[in-house]
């Protein structure tokens, strides 16, 4: 029927439907549980690979290179800003009341990092102070 297509608006139909379950309940796994418990106590935990010594933040069950189970949990310190961005409009292109600055906070000698809402003047590599231990973190640059 390549040769007899029609294009009138009322002849072309669409069908509305969804592809949703009511909700998802994700388990977070043993390592994220340890992390979230630490977060409540104001601690940022990482987990160390016994072979290469890399510390993963947030902690991970396994090392992505050595592929072995990670060992001890360690508390990581000295957060700094790896990168940042400021958001002016939301997903639907509606202007936000207040622009939000989001950053990726990494920790000294650790792999990985956490998303954070940033106050103050952001700068790449700048040390930050954690104001609130939550997801996302709240930090002051």
């Amino acid at each position, binding site marked *: 029927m390549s040769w007899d297509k029609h294009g009138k608006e009322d002849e072309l139909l669409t069908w509305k439907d969804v592809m949703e379950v009511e909700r998802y309940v*994700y388990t977070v796994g043993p390592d*994220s549980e340890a992390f979230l418990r630490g977060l409540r106590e104001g601690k940022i935990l990482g987990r160390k690979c016994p072979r290469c010594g890399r510390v*993963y933040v947030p902690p991970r069950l396994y090392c992505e290179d050595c592929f072995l189970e990670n060992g001890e949990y360690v508390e990581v310190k000295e957060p700094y800003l790896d990168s940042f*961005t400021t*958001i002016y*409009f939301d997903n639907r292109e509606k202007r936000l009341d207040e622009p939000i600055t989001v950053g990726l906070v990494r920790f000294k000698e650790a792999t990985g*990092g*956490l998303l954070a809402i940033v106050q103050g003047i952001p700068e*790449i590599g700048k040390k930050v102070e954690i104001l609130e231990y939550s997801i996302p973190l709240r930090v002051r640059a």
Partner: protein
Amino acid sequence: MENVGIVGIGWYGFSTNVHDLSFREMMFEAAQRAFYDAGGMNPREQIDAFISCQEDFWEGISISDEFAPDPVGGSMRPTMTVAGDGLQGLAHGFMLINSGVADVVVVESHAKPSDILTFPEIVELAMDPVYVREAKIPNYHFIAGLDATKFMHRTGVTREDLAEVVIKNRASGLKTGRAPHASMLSKEDVLSQEMIVYPLTRVDVARPVDGAIVVVLASETFARKFNDTPIWITGIGFSTDNSNLELAKLGDAFYLRKASELAFGMAKLESPLKVNGMFVDDRYSYKELQHVEALGVNNVAEKLREGYFHEGSYLPVNPKGGHLAKGYPLEASGLSLVLDAVEYMREGVSSAVVASWRGIPTFTGGVAVLQR
């Protein structure tokens, strides 16, 4: 390994809303054109395997693979889906031919983002549920924002440079028949735009677009049966940097560094400067420069300012407009760049590099080296 030839290519759509055809009908239209391009081949007899590239939540159908075979002539044939970018599908086709199970393979990919009513939420669904989705950042472009800030900090690329990319690509699109977002812009137009997500404005961000693309691949032995001047894929590679945002390298397209290492090695291409054109993913203006850099071109900011990447210069980048002009057809994005490259090469040049990216929030990309 032997080279694999692109003997036919066809497309349909590239409009912000293909209202009159369902995605299946778009696939059929694109397939018809591709088979005609391949010398009027009969897909029911002359094709050994079919590959479709799609993702469930883009389609709104769980197991969307079900709808892959019929419209491309693949029912009751070896047909499969690669849940990835079209360029990954091309790599799988390349492997099928080299493994010997097939001589002629069809790779198909399509997108119907106009059917998706909750596009940002679908993108969000691809993010890690614990650490990224839970952060509830109001705009998913923030990942590009983080990446762009770091990239510009490291390389010295400025907002003016990004504007130059936007102007170049959107204008180049005016020459092609499938670029709904092409336009003439001046530097002031671009620089006066409001930021959506720092450092990106509305014109720095490409929009999704409806479209379907079908590519016919053939082995060295069979290629000339369908086409006197096949475009050869002499090298292909793809790679995933870390899929978790916090573990991936920000500000550098590591995935393309790895993918191009594989593809260039296979094609025995010593330097990316030796090709006649580059077709790289430019879903965000900075991504074009970042991707060109990852392919092994140094000092991209300076080169851009010297006019290196403009059409008619040493190394044209996206001379057909890229995604900024054409929009990105989701998983068909990689194939849309291949389509640009094939058309460009059919105009007479002898080689090109295609580099794709799967978009937010992934860190996956593929590279193909095309030669005549």
